[in-house]
């Protein structure tokens, strides 16, 4: 296997990702025209509709040009980091997003660590103790996680650990690194539970399959300890399907973050998106949607690349990806 194989693979993936980004950007652009009524009105919002402002909007969004030209000019502006002006408060969309990014990143990273750490551990333990009460409890927890959306779990956590027991704060994002972690613990758990279920399910299924293989029997015959076999041999192989599911995990975290931020009233990008949607602030919706979807596409691209690195069979083309 040469490194050129990897390069070709990555180029092939890029050939899929780039058109995808174009289609997404086109959809986001079309939102202006998808909104009921005149696009100028949609972009005007609650501002006074004097002729000068209306003309400014027409020029700013090139509304007098043909549709495709509008898209081209808009895309060029976006690529130059210009996402326009939010219709409420007249602030630059990019500035508003920058202000809100910190909370969302902190929350997502915290949840991702919980999802991958705890999810893989629970899945592995359940597979190792297959058929026992512990296994059934973990499987049941998984069903619960898939069925309970983050905003519902969030309300229960908020009530029991925030309002009743006072273990965690119930409002605000906190200041400084540690205090923020303290404030974001409940939101991160609420977000992690729903996404973790996928990881538990896949890890458990993959582990059960791997545990039945010959090399496990052989390792047992050599007298290796059960925990060593599980964690040093089986888990490593079982993690490959988990990496494939990482895309689902990312989509789950992004979508879940929107709901969790609203539930816990956190000033992040998710809550910003919902607020913008409720107020029909099209430029702001375009900005956050573009950010979220590009993030998902790029992460999926990164996952594909990681996948080829950890599983040589993909590089050799023996497994149909």
């Amino acid at each position, binding site marked *: 296997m040469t490194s050129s194989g990897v390069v070709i693979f990555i180029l092939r993936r890029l050939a899929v990702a780039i058109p995808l980004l174009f289609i997404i950007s086109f959809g986001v652009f079309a939102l202006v025209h998808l909104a009921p009524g005149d696009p100028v009105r949609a972009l005007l919002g609650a501002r006074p509709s004097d002729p000068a402002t209306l003309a400014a909007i027409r020029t700013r969004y090139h509304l007098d040009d043909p549709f495709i030209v509008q898209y081209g000019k808009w895309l060029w502006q976006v690529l130059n980091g210009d996402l326009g002006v939010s219709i409420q408060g007249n602030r630059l969309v990019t500035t508003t997003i920058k202000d809100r990014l910190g909370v969302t990143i902190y929350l997502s990273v915290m949840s991702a660590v919980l999802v991958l750490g705890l999810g893989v551990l629970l899945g592995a333990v359940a597979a190792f103790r297959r058929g026992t009460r512990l296994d059934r409890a973990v499987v049941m927890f998984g069903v*619960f996680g898939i069925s309970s*959306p983050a905003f*519902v779990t969030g309300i229960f956590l908020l009530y029991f650990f925030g309002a009743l027991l006072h273990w965690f704060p119930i409002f605000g994002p906190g200041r400084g690194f540690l205090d923020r972690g303290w404030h974001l613990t409940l939101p991160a758990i609420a977000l992690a539970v729903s996404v973790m279920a996928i990881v538990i399910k896949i890890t458990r299924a993959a582990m059960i399959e791997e545990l039945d293989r010959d090399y496990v029997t052989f390792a047992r015959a050599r007298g290796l300890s059960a925990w060593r076999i599980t964690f040093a041999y089986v888990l490593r192989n079982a993690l490959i399907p988990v990496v494939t599911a990482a895309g689902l995990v990312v989509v789950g975290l992004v979508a879940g973050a*929107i709901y969790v931020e609203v539930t816990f009233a956190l000033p992040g990008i998710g809550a910003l998106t919902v607020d913008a949607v*409720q107020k029909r602030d*099209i430029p702001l919706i375009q900005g956050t949607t573009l950010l979220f979807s590009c993030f998902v596409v790029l992460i999926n691209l990164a996952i594909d690349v990681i996948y080829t690195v950890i599983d040589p069979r993909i590089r050799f083309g023996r497994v149909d990806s």
Partner: protein
Amino acid sequence: MSVTAAGEPRPVGRLSAIPFVIIAAAIVIAVVVVCAIFGAGIAPDSAFVQRLAIGDLPPSADHLAGTDLLGRDVLSRVVYGARTALVGPIVVAAGAFAIATLLGLLSGYLGGLVDSAIMRWVDFMFALPGPLVAIVVVGVVGGGYWTAVFVLVVLFTAPDTRIVRSAVLKQRPLPYIDAARVLGISKARIVFFHILPNVLPIILAYVVLDFAFALVNLAGLSFLGLGVEPGTPDWGRMLFENRNILFSNPAALLLPAAMIILTAVSMNLIGDWLFERFAK
């Protein structure tokens, strides 16, 4: 879930063979269905009468789950809420699988260009953050509940198509297909009369799982204020409207929240069980 030894006949069709959790889940669903159909007759009070003078009160003998900010009876609103909790998800699950079954059968059996085209579309849909698309489209286009149902049908069709297609691909190399082809049976007849009945159990199991997923998604949109009309008794909408009375009447939030989880868990359990039992 007991492990049956090889060769041991699996008991089929006896009630005692159904695990206890599945019976419990079926009872939960039955209760929700009864509430959805006979809501007005079961609810202890009107779901709409406002008593602004009393406002949000904690549970009492008069109002078993208390009242919301407008003084409406929470328990009655939860009973009425069963309707939007069932109708939308049924339409989503049935609609998505009707389209997905057709696309999956075509894609899996015909292969070639049709297959590639359908699969590229599925890949594209998979790359999108579905729930975000739903929020933005429903929010910008407007139209509330039924727009949400329509968007979810489109979003759910892609993963469902992949499921049907892979089930069809498992049937293709089996001898009965070759036999049917040798007999000169038309493609359409093979697809709809020979393959479809064999993949139907898998489809039905996933329809049930889709229902649970649609319920959670629709409740989520209503929770963001984007689903049902304001004032409609709906579990998700109740979480949105009552979010500020967690301290004065926690039941107004915890009861609808519990109903969402209970219904979704029950449907997921039934779906998983159907899948293990009939589709493997």
